C-alpha cells in the first residue's frame, strides 16, 4: 500500500442519544439484580427456617430453644463443637503463621510461587476427596501407622481414624490455606524496611520480629482465626468420616433432626444458636480491636 495515498479523515464522534445506559437510574439495575437474588433465594429461606425455631405453627415460643439448653446431650454437642473448632483453629494458626512468615521472608519469587502452589493445590481439591484420603492415611493399616511401626516407634497401630485426633487433622488440613492466605495477605503489606530499621537501631532478628512484624500482622491473624473458627463451627462431613462418636458437631445434629427425626423446629433452634454464636464471635473482636492502631484502615 502506498502510504502517501493514505489520508486521515476526521470521523465525527457519533453517539446514539438513547442508549440503555443513559436512562436515569439504570445503573441501579446492576445492584438490584444480585440484591434480589440474595434476598429471595438466601435471606428469605434462612429467615423462614429460623422462624421454625421460635414458632410452633400458631404462636411464637421459646420452647425449642429452652429444650436445646435443657437437654444435656444437645448442650454437650454444642460445647464440643466449640471445643473442636477452637483446637482446630489454634492448630491451623500455629501451623499457618510460620508458613506465612516464611512466604513473607522469601527472597526468590520462584520459590515463593512453588510454596504458594503447594498450599493452594489441596485447596482446589474437593473436601470429600481429601477426607477420604485422610481415611486411607489414618486407618490402622494406613500409611502413618505402617511407617511408625516400620520405624519401630510403636508396636501396636495407633487408633487415629474415628477419633478426635483424626477429626482435627482433617479439619486443619482444610483450614490451613485460609489461615495462611489471611495472614500472608496482611504480612505482604508490611514494609521490609521496617525490619531493617529495627535491626539498624539494634534489634536482633527475633526482637525485630516480635516488635514489628508480629503486631503488624495481627489484623491477618484475627481475620484468619475468625474465618477458620466460623468455618469449623459448620463442619459436617469431616466429623462423620474421620471423627469418633464423641465428635458430633452441631451440623451433624441439625442434619439428624432434618433427615432422621424430622424435628425441624429443633433443627431451626440449633441453627439459630449456631448463627447467633457466629455473629457474636465476629462482633466481639471487632468491637475490641476496632480502635487498635494497627488495624487502622483494615476494618
Amino acid at each position, binding site marked *: 500500500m502506498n502510504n502517501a495515498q493514505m489520508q486521515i479523515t476526521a470521523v465525527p464522534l457519533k453517539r446514539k442519544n438513547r442508549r440503555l445506559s443513559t436512562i436515569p437510574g439504570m445503573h441501579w439495575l446492576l445492584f438490584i439484580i444480585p440484591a434480589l437474588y440474595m434476598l429471595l433465594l438466601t435471606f428469605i429461606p434462612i429467615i423462614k427456617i429460623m422462624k421454625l425455631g421460635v414458632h410452633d405453627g400458631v404462636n411464637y415460643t421459646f420452647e425449642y430453644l429452652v429444650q436445646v439448653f435443657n437437654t444435656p446431650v444437645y448442650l454437650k454437642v454444642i460445647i464440643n463443637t466449640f471445643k473442636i473448632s477452637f483446637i482446630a483453629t489454634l492448630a491451623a494458626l500455629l501451623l499457618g503463621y510460620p508458613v506465612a512468615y516464611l512466604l513473607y521472608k522469601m527472597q526468590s519469587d520462584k520459590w515463593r510461587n512453588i510454596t504458594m502452589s503447594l498450599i493452594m493445590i489441596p485447596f482446589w481439591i474437593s473436601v470429600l476427596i481429601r477426607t477420604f484420603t485422610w481415611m486411607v492415611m489414618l486407618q490402622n493399616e494406613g500409611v502413618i501407622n505402617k511407617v511408625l511401626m516400620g520405624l519401630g516407634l510403636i508396636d501396636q497401630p495407633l487408633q487415629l481414624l474415628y477419633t478426635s485426633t483424626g477429626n482435627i487433622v482433617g479439619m486443619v488440613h482444610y483450614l490451613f490455606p485460609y489461615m495462611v492466605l489471611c495472614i500472608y495477605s496482611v504480612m505482604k503489606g508490611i*514494609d521490609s*524496611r*521496617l525490619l*531493617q530499621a529495627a*535491626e*539498624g537501631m539494634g534489634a536482633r532478628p527475633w526482637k525485630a520480629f516480635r*516488635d514489628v512484624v508480629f503486631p*503488624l500482622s495481627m489484623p491477618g491473624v484475627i481475620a484468619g482465626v475468625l474465618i477458620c473458627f466460623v468455618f469449623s463451627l459448620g463442619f459436617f462431613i469431616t466429623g462423620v468420616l474421620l471423627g469418633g462418636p464423641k465428635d458430633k458437631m452441631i451440623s451433624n445434629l441439625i442434619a439428624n433432626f432434618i433427615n432422621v427425626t424430622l424435628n425441624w423446629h429443633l433443627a431451626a433452634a440449633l441453627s439459630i444458636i449456631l448463627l447467633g454464636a457466629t455473629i457474636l464471635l465476629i462482633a466481639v473482636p471487632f468491637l475490641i480491636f476496632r480502635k487498635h492502631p494497627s488495624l487502622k484502615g483494615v476494618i
Partner: protein
Amino acid sequence: MTAHLEIISAQKNYKNFKAVDNVHLSINKGEFVTILGPSGSGKTTLLKLIAGFESLNNGAILLDGQEITKKKAYDRNIGMVFQNYALFPHMTIFDNIAYPLQLRKVPKQEIKEQVYKALQMVRLEGFDSRFPSQLSGGQQQRVALARAIVFNPPLLLLDEPLGALDKNLRQQMQFEIKHIQEKLGITTVNVTHDQEEALTMSDRICVMNHGRVEQMDTPERLYNCPQSKFVSSFIGEINWFHGEIIHSESGLSIVKLLNGQVVRMKAEQTLKENSAVLIAIRPENIHVVHEGSAYTHKYHVKVMGKTYIGDSFRVEAMTDTNERISIKLPYAATKEMAVGDQLEVGWNTADASLIPDDEAKNDAVS
C-alpha cells in the same frame, strides 16, 4: 585528623554485576559527606554496606578504628534515616523515638528525657502521642531523624532523606538537617541523586558512577575542578572543548584544540601525550569579548538560540569547529543578540579544567 569511617577496597557483586567496585572512602569525624550519583551507580548499595544490611564480597569497613565488616547491622550502633522514613505505624511518635533506647535498656525516666530532647531538636514538641499516619511527610521525616540520633550513634546515614518532599520543604529540611548535624557534630553519610542537595549540605561530595568513585572533593572543587567527564557533566552545566595533548611535563600540559589554538594548563592527573582530552568550562566562565578585555583564549561562535532562565540568559552557540557551547550571559549583554549573529567569546585557562576524554579513548580501543 584520623579517619572516622574508613572503607577499604569495598567490593559488592550481585551475580556478575559489580554494584560497588573497589571503593575507597575515608571520612573524618563530624564531617558531612554526600554520596552523589545517578540511579544504579551503587550509592545506595554502598550505604547498605555501611549500615550492615548487605555484606561485602571483599574489602573492609572501619568505624572509629574498629573493623565492623563482619558485624551484624544490630551490633553496629549506626543511626539511619530511610527514604520512606520507615516509622513503625503501630507505635506512637514517642514509642518510635524511644525504641532504640528501649533496646539499649535505658532507664524509663532517662528515655523520657532523651525522647523529649530529640523531639525538641526536630521541633515536634507535643506530637509525642500521635501516630505516624497522622503526620505530614515533613513531620515524619523529622521523627525519622529524631529516632536516628536519639541514641547518640557515632555515625548517621541518610538514604535519600528528602526525596519524597516538595521543593520548598526540601530546602527547609536541608537547612535543618545540616543545622542539627553541625550542632551534634555527628559524622554523616548522605546518599542522594540531587546535585543541589549535595552541593548545599555537604562538606565533601563523593561522586559515584558504575559502582566506582569518580571524584571525592569539596563542593567548590567538584564544581570548579571536575576530574572526569562524568563529574563535569553530572554537576551543573558544562562546555567541552575537544583537544589533544601535544606535550606533558611536570604537571603542565600543552593541549592543541580542534581550531588549532594551543592551551597551556596545569593538569591534576598525568595525561599521556597524544591522548584525547577535554577542556571543561562552566557557562558562566565564558564571556563576550569587548574592547580592552583580556582573555587567554578567544573563539568565534555563531548564536544558535537564547533561553531566558530567570536571572540571566543562556545562549546556545556553535564554534567554527562545530562544537556546541552554552554561555550564561546577563540580560544587558544579550539584548541586541539574535540567532545567526557572529560573536567573539573568550575564556581564561584559570577557569577551565583539563580532563581526559574517556569516550574517545574507548573509541580508539574498539
